[in-house]
């Protein structure tokens, strides 16, 4: 993982989480804005996948368990599409809140992934 990119990813996920939760509790249904945050998170996660594949080959290997790292990353990648599908099927304020919850969950997962990559000893 790349430190500054990890920070960006976690920050975007937290901001998206906060934004969607507030929008949802304020009664807003899923919109271009809230669904757009999920799309942005997904793009950043895909970039993270690419980084994670290349990094060990350019001198940035994980210190921790690679399998655990990838289980987290694959799980994280699955979440934005699932959240958006839910939001499109069920266009209520709670779907917006759920997209916020999904974004916070991704932030926590990326944090865990960072710990695995940089601190944990395999």
């Amino acid at each position, binding site marked *: 993982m790349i430190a500054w990119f990890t920070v960006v990813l976690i920050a975007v996920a937290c901001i998206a989480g906060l934004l969607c939760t507030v929008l949802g509790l304020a009664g807003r249904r899923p919109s271009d804005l809230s669904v757009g945050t999920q799309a942005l998170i997904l793009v950043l996660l895909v970039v993270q996948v690419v980084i994670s594949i290349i990094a060990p080959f350019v001198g940035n290997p994980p210190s921790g368990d690679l*399998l655990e790292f990838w*289980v987290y990353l694959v799980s994280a990648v699955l979440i934005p599409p699932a959240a958006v599908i839910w939001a499109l099927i069920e266009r209520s304020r709670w779907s917006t809140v759920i997209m916020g919850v*999904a974004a916070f969950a991704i932030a926590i*997962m990326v944090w865990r992934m960072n710990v695995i990559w940089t601190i944990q000893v395999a």
Partner: protein
Amino acid sequence: MPETAPTPPAPSAASSSPRRMTGVGRVLVVVYAIMALGATGRSFVQIVREFDDAPVAYSLSALSALVYILATLALIFSASERWYRVAWAAIVFELVGVLVVGTLSLTHPELFNHPTVWSGYGIGYVLIPLVLPFLGLWWLIAHRRGRTTGGAA
């Protein structure tokens, strides 16, 4: 024979059109589903990798994953009385689990030299495993009336 009192609604099978959950209930289901996903992934990795290192800890990880999956499903179908009771059982088990495992991980750390979902009362997951069963129980208590008797046949 004249129509008298309206007949009670026919019990719906648990699989067909359960009563819709309120919005907060859906958020709860999503959080449970995410915990189920995370716990399953983590216990899968731990068991594949290092089961012999800490079999007690990793068996508990697998057990917690199963409990979260069961709680998620039971909450989704909780309009049916049977699934409602399963949800109660799963969430009470979850609460006991996080309290017991959390305490043991502090008093007998040698059993838990590898962290699990419930170690340290779920500190590795920002204490969500500790708070979640209370939210689950609150939701079950707040929605205990008006259940269908699905699955009774």
